């Protein structure tokens, strides 16, 4: 499809603006005046509508395709959540920051406060900040809180420990806050090697970052022992909430020794992923870290009204301008309110059931490097297929031609040609059975006709793209240089 810029015709008028009801002001001084209008498209409203409607049709999405993208929890996003978020669209965040402004924003502040209380209960934490704008932002915020904790105590800390199965955001977030990274390998049983971990720990370790269940989809039964070892060094335990969907009502990170957690609302709490965002990454902490939480804090007063607290001298400050990705949080709040206690427990039970079902139906067809009961996702390897020259990516592309969004491939890095499948609780057995059949077909095709897999996909607007050319030419903007 042509770019919108390529459809531009000089002089074609855009959306009509309101007529000016005030006099035209004097021009800006010459040095401040733009010399020519920015090169935006000149297209009609119909052009815009047809272009972006047709562009949208070039995406797979949860609403059109099964999307078992491991580690991303691509569950169905209830439509009522979109409508609920729309109810809050006219409210300006500055209103609450004006003198006496809180009383004009009780609905918004109350929602945020209650969301925080619920998240604290779900994660077993004491308090929650809703300011972080995404999971990785939450991680960074959490590590900043840990740094502030150590600074306040006068601890001299230098390292953050992560398992080699961790998400890349974990070490990256810790590095953003100035820590060096110690990576601990995974033991053959699929968890961070306990002995190597013990050896790695020292008094300069600020935090241990764990995903639990981890990126292999496995729950680490030694988690409390790990926490005890960390705490013995006054290192804090950081819980990466990416996989929280597995354990709602089953395990609370705060109960088992974690001190800080971020929650990906767009994963666990059913807000749509938006083609890459916006997400939302509230952070929960234990009491010892509460003084350091970002400002402003939303507090409930004795008269049940909500207020903003800004006088918090130990606070790390602000991690975003206002109150976080509010619209995303409205959806997550509504999701929790709608499902309720039993519904949320059921989410995890069914997510785990679905993942184990897929694992059971595919383990005869694909290598399963860690053959154990999994949690909400299972990780295969295309090892068997590699013998025929077929890689995980080839399986992925075959699935595209069959109408399935591929699972996550090549992650976690510790599994050769990993295929990481997370069906989520919102998919039915019928959908999974159809997917399983196609995955088995792919395995059969890998043996019989590997070339067909190499040329997939053939049914999309484009076939496999030349990524090297893209990286070399760095053509990231439609413009004459």
């Amino acid at each position: 499809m042509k770019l919108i810029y390529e459809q531009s015709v000089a002089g074609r008028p855009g959306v009509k603006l309101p007529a000016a009801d005030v006099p035209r002001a004097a021009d800006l001084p010459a040095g401040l005046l733009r010399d020519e209008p920015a090169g935006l498209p000149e297209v009609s409203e119909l052009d815009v509508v047809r272009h972006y409607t047709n562009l949208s049709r070039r995406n797979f999405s949860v609403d059109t395709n099964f999307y078992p993208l491991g580690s991303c929890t691509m569950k169905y996003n209830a439509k009522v959540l979109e409508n609920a978020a729309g109810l809050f669209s006219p409210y300006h965040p500055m209103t609450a920051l004006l003198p006496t402004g809180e009383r004009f924003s009780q609905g918004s502040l109350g929602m945020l406060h209650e969301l925080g209380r619920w998240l604290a209960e779900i994660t077993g934490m004491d308090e929650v900040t809703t300011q972080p704008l995404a999971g990785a932002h939450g991680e960074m915020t959490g590590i900043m809180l840990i740094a502030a904790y150590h600074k306040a105590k006068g601890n001299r800390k230098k390292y953050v420990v992560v398992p080699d199965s961790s998400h890349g955001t974990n070490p990256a977030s810790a590095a953003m806050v100035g820590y060096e990274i110690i990576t601990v390998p995974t033991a053959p049983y699929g968890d961070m090697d306990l002995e190597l971990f013990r050896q790695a720990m020292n008094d300069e370790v600020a935090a241990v970052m764990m995903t639990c269940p981890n990126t292999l989809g496995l729950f680490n039964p030694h988690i409390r022992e790990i926490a005890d070892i960390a705490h013995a060094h006054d290192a804090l335990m950081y819980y990466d909430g990416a996989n929280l969907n597995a354990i709602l009502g089953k395990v609370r990170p705060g109960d088992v020794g974690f001190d800080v957690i971020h929650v990906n609302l767009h994963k666990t709490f059913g807000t749509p992923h938006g083609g890459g965002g916006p997400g939302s990454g509230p952070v929960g902490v234990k009491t010892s870290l509460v003084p350091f939480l970002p400002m402003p804090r939303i507090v409930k007063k004795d008269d049940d009204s909500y207020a903003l607290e800004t006088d918090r001298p130990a606070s790390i400050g602000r991690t975003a301008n206002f109150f976080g990705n509010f619209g995303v949080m409205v959806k997550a709040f509504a999701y929790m309110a709608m499902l309720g206690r039993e519904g949320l427990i059921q989410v995890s039970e069914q997510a785990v059931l679905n993942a184990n079902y897929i694992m059971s139906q595919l383990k005869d067809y694909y290598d399963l490097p860690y053959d154990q009961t999994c949690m909400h996702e299972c990780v295969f390897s295309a090892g068997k297929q590699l013998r025929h020259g077929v890689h995980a990516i080839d399986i992925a592309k075959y699935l595209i031609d069959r109408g399935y969004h591929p699972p996550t491939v090549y992650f976690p890095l510790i599994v050769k040609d990993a295929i990481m499948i997370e069906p989520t609780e919102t998919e039915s057995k019928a959908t999974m059975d159809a997917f399983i059949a196609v995955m088995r077909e792919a395995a059969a095709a890998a043996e019989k006709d590997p070339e067909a897999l190499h040329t997939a996909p053939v049914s999309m607007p484009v076939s496999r793209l030349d990524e090297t050319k893209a990286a070399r030419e760095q053509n990231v903007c439609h413009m004459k240089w």
Partner: protein
Amino acid sequence: MSDSHYCPNTPDEIREMLAAIGVASVEELFAPIPAELRASSFDLPEGMSEFELFQRMQSLAGQNAQGMTNFIGGGYYDHIIPAVVDHLSGRAEFYTAYTPYQPECSQGTLQALFEYQTAICRLTGMEVANASLYDGATALAEAAMMALRVTNRNRLVMDGGVSPFTRQVVRTYLDNLDVEIVEIAPQQGGTDRAALLAALDDQTAAVLVQNPNFFGTLDDLTGLADAAHAKGALLVASVYPISLGLVQSPGAMGADIVVGDGQSLGNPLSFGGPSFGFIATTKKYIRNLPGRIIGETVDKEGRRGFVLTLQAREQHIKRHKATSNICSNQSLCALRGLIFLASIGKQGFAELARLNHDKAEFAKSTLAAINGVTVVNRGATFNEFTLALPKNADEVVAKLLQSHTAAGVPLAAYYPGMENCLVVTVTEKRTKDEILALARELERAL
């Protein structure tokens, strides 16, 4: 087991699945979790139907004040959003997809983000842009960190005209790093240019400015860029995108990195989020950009297509050596920004900025005509301006709030000594009548 249509499997299906797995119950699947690690509590309300939920949400939203007339900005702006923006960004294929890891079935998102990057380059006068960051404040923090990497220096000079919230974010981001931040106090709502230039030294990685600044004042950054460059420092400018319909692009003024918040481009106020941050720079710094970047390429048949590119900078590959920890972007918000810009169009965008300027200038002269009220800004402003009132601005604002007029942002909390000052924002949505009503109310309150 299930009474929720969000967990669709029936008891029969669950039985079949358990049998296929070879376990007797769902609970057995949780056996890997030792009993002593099980949740000690899960005290949440009971669920409810969609209908009850929506009523509850309506009731919550209704607890905010209705029908506020906004003369406030401070980073978020009450602009027109053409109806197409909601309709098109509401296409399920856009909003229920994820990061376009598989380009063949994600060309919709990828092409749109490539078009978005192009729009940002064209607005800012820069050469490359990424696929969006979280918001304007974190974008400035990322830009600061990028400048530190690019220059391999550890000192930043930040103008006090940068939003106090944003300055706080920058400070928070850098607090644990070995970086010195020098802040230059503003004078009469503008940059103290002399003090700023004096603060520049050969360890300065960058000068961080906002244009128009928190007081609404516009600055010609050209001289500043030259001065920074003379010291080997970068000029990082945070800009208000609507102003770029009228105001010279930061690229043309010599900025090296340009950031800003995209909320005003088609994203609702929504109590502060989500919006998106944009970041743009020159081609030579592309490998130091944080976040996702979309690049153009071809497929095996030579057809044009788009992919995530330069991923080797990113956390999922580089881990702790990545340019940033950023994983998601604000894709849907950026898409809204793109659709906003495309539907308003080239001439429309210039008109929109002009309309904002005209309304604000009318408001400025109208309000300044009130006895005892003066304009603080020296020189030109865009869309916002700062008034000095004859009494405490906090009190005035609190009083006008009672009649659901948000008269402006009083500065006491952010700039000591400016207790009588008020930043007033006027967008194209404010009518002449509303401006005149504000003037009457303000006069009455003084």
